[in-house]
């Protein structure tokens, strides 16, 4: 198998070919991973919400409380102000889902679903819907439309500024999707490429291949640790940017 084919096979989504009688179910590797992550998240969150007597349960409950407090004081209120409090549950879900999706890619035999533009696009669309909902909720339908024209704009500039502002909002939603997708995809491609260096050099000379294993594995470990950081960072950035964009719509004058 060619190097590019190997990378594509590991990164791209593929149909699992599951049949239900004569029906072909469109279940792919990414869909299955997403189901798995959802189930794990559901179990973790249910356990977090309960106060048990064991040390583990109490620890998990405290962790859950700290997490929600961090999301409220570190992301939602600085970005959206006190008006963002009703949306706290959305941000908590979003952060955990993205984080678990990013981390899943670091587990062998699991797929990084956030390296699929359809997944990040769907997440960005949810955030876009939240931004529009915030605008309509806090300004009313017509008021939200009026926020697309900054105060003090001369009337003859309105036909130019209005479409620019609408496209800016669309671009922001696209940026949310592209940023997460590009970061996760490129990170995993680098990881795979580093690993494949050993086999490429090994095809030329077995001794050289064995010699390249040590530096390649060193780089691989470094990149894996970096990916671990990126997994947290990108979940944080996606959530923070959603709150900032929603806050800009809420507090636009």
């Amino acid at each position, binding site marked *: 198998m060619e190097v590019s084919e190997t990378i594509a096979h590991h990164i791209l989504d593929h149909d699992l070919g599951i049949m239900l009688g004569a029906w072909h179910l469109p279940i792919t590797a990414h869909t299955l991973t997403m189901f798995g992550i959802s189930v794990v998240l559901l179990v973790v969150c249910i356990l977090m919400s309960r106060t048990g007597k064991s040390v583990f349960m109490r620890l998990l409950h405290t962790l859950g409380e700290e997490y929600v407090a961090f999301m409220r004081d570190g992301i939602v209120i*600085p*970005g959206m102000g006190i008006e963002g409090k009703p949306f706290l549950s959305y941000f908590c879900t979003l952060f955990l889902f993205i984080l678990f999706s990013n981390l899943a890619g670091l587990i062998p035999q699991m797929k990084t679903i956030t390296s699929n533009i359809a997944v990040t696009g769907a997440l960005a669309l949810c955030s876009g819907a939240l931004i529009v909902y915030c605008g309509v909720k806090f300004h009313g339908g017509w008021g939200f439309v009026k926020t697309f024209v900054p105060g003090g704009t001369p009337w003859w500039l309105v036909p130019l500024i209005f479409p*620019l502002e609408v*496209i*800016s909002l*669309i*671009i*922001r939603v*696209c*940026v949310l999707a*592209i*940023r997460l997708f590009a970061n996760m995809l490129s990170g995993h491609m680098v990881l795979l490429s580093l690993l494949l260096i050993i086999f490429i050099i090994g095809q030329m000379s077995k001794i050289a291949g064995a010699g390249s294993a040590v530096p390649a594995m060193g780089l691989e470990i470094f990149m894996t640790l970096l990916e671990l950081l990126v997994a947290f960072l990108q979940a944080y*950035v996606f959530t*923070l*940017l959603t709150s*900032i964009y929603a806050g800009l719509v809420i507090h636009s004058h």
Partner: protein
Amino acid sequence: MRLGPFTPRDHVVITTLGLEFAVAVGLCTAGGFLADKKLGSTPWLSIGGVFVGFALGMYMVVKEAKRMERAEAEQKDDKKNGSI
């Protein structure tokens, strides 16, 4: 002109601005390309898309810079009022 100190929020917004600029140019160029294909006016609408995207990107960057400047001025005012 003094730059910073930047908050973590500013860092996230600033690093996103570059991507917003690129996406603006890419999206408008793609729009122009598709319109060109439909109307048979190759390559004028694609070229127009590049310029519109560039203008849009610049507009977003300048708007964000102004907003950050305003926020910093407000923060300074708050500090002044607090010290009095």
